[in-house]
């Protein structure tokens, strides 16, 4: 069962990511990316991390992508003409070579060292909200405080960038 679910979620996640990169229209790309992140939530659920799966849907697919869609729809219309063609094929070829090299290395690595199975230790401790919060608010309290400062600075930065020009004394 786990095998089928893994391959289903993995294929959908990768396929949606490829569609994100390949789609011409930014709104289409954002919707594909939301689909990709929802499948990533399925991957997290398979990794016995239910809390992360929920947060993936809430934060990534919800908050962050809504922010993206908001900005895209604000800028779109006259702003985002279809991307110019030309040099596209050349770029794809330039990209395909290292990607093929990396794929060969990966396949060689997997076939040589075999598949590392998960130990049973992981099975016993599913990442529920209670357990993760226990770690987050005890052992990693300093990191938690620091990341909240990062978010605060991001808020202040976004506000400073978004002000009207006459309100910007540094101009």
């Amino acid at each position, binding site marked *: 069962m*786990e*095998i089928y679910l893994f391959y289903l979620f*993995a294929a959908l*996640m*990768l396929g949606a*990511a490829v569609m*994100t*990169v390949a789609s011409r229209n*930014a709104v289409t790309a954002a919707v594909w*990316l939301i689909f*990709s992140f929802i499948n*990533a939530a399925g*991957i*997290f659920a*398979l*990794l*016995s*991390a239910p809390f*992360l799966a929920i*947060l993936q849907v809430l*934060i*990534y697919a919800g*908050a*962050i992508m809504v*922010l*993206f869609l908001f*900005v*895209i729809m604000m*800028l779109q219309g006259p*702003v*985002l003409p279809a991307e*110019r063609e030309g040099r*596209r094929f050349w770029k794809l070829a330039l*990209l395909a070579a290292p*990607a093929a090299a*990396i794929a060969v290395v990966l396949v060689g690595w997997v076939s040589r060292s075999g*598949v*590392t*199975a*998960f*130990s049973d*230790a*992981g*099975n016993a*401790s599913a*990442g529920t909200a209670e*357990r*993760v919060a226990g*770690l*987050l608010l005890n052992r*990693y309290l300093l*990191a938690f405080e620091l*990341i*909240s400062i990062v*978010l605060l*600075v*991001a808020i202040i*930065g976004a506000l400073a*960038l*978004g002000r009207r020009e006459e309100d910007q004394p540094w101009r």
Partner: protein
Amino acid sequence: MEIGLTHYLVLAAAMFLVGMAGVVIRRNSLIMLMSIEIMLCAVNVVFAAYSRMHGDLSGHVFVLMNFAVAAAEAAIGLAILVEIYRLRRTVNVDELKTLME
């Protein structure tokens, strides 16, 4: 065959490559930002997979940190894009080369 750590690592590597390809070949900076989100998501999968491997939930805590970093990156990146659009009327990175000239 059972699904093990290797499967998740290969999946994350492929996901990261897709994101990297997006940053390299796309000229629309909105889609470049989305590709960065794809790469961050690949990193999250690696964290969760090793967490499952060792039966230690510290990896999950750092995935939470990564969520916060992704949110901050999206907020600042999009604010910069809106400002660039306001000044230059474009978000195409080919046309944003003032520093180059």
